[in-house]
């Protein structure tokens, strides 16, 4: 291997170490075979691998995580169960049979209330316009009707 081709191989190896890490088992088979060949013959390649392994170890240490807090698993399962109980209550108690006749009886009541409310709003509008008309300081223009 010439110096130039060796340097080129080192550049490729370094780029692949960045891509796949120091654990050669994670490398694609074809690239791993080339890397293993290089590692057998080149101390520079071994140094690069050692440097990458050091970075991997530092990353593993940096990403260390504490154990799962006590009771978290129970809390998660309890939350799921609580949601279930609530849903069950909603579907069986509120939306199912026992309340249906009462719900049906309430429909005319609600409709009547809504109609009454809407009529009240119309009346309010009318009363407002009458109030405005009578509170005006200007005399109201009244068209002569011809009645005496």
């Amino acid at each position, binding site marked *: 291997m010439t110096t130039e081709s060796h340097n080129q191989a080192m550049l490729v190896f370094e*780029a692949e*170490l*960045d*891509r*796949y*890490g120091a654990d050669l088992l*994670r490398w694609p088979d074809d690239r791993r075979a080339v890397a293993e060949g290089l590692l057998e013959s080149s101390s520079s390649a071994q140094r690069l691998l050692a*440097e*990458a392994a*050091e*970075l*991997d170890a*530092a*990353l*593993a*240490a*940096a*990403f260390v*995580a*504490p*154990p*799962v*807090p006590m009771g*978290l*698993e129970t*809390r*998660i*399962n309890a*939350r*799921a*169960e609580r*949601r*279930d109980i609530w849903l069950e209550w909603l579907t069986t108690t509120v939306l199912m049979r026992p309340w249906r006749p009462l719900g049906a009886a309430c429909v005319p009541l609600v409709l009547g209330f809504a109609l009454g409310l809407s009529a009240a709003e119309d009346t309010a509008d009318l009363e407002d316009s009458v109030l405005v008309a009578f509170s005006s300081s200007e005399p109201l223009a009244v068209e002569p009707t011809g009645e005496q």
Partner: protein
Amino acid sequence: MIRVQNQDRDAFAILVGRHLEAIHAFNYRFLRNAEDAADVAQEAFLRVWNKAGTYRAGRVKFSTWLHRIARNLCIDLHRRRTHTEELDSGVPDENGLRPDQAPAGQRLAAALARELAALPERQRTALMLCHSQGMSNRDAAAVLGVSVDALESLLARGRRTLRVALRDYR
């Protein structure tokens, strides 16, 4: 997972037991806060329970789907809360030492923590998934929603940045 889709609580409990440690660790690595990590783990599993019907078994592994849910929750939470002050260079470490007074190993660890925090989120998460969550490149790519080639590019850029930045600390 099929049993969970049928709202089988026992199956859900098995699923939680099997994946909680990994997903809690992922959340902690992402958020660097134990309380937030636990809250996000809880929320992630409740989403699994509530939206189990949307999971398609043949398309992605369950653990990949769960990590994707957790990552989205972590990103949302991280946007609301930042803990960068913990990683500031002037902040004393647990032993009360400033980084410049600490032994070489601790200086390297502190520098790595800073450099990791400064990496773009996708590069950091790619490293985390492949180095600490034990995922294959294919699964990690699925979590991030990118191709395997794009994931390897993220890994390469992240590792190169760290390698160059940490040379002075060796």
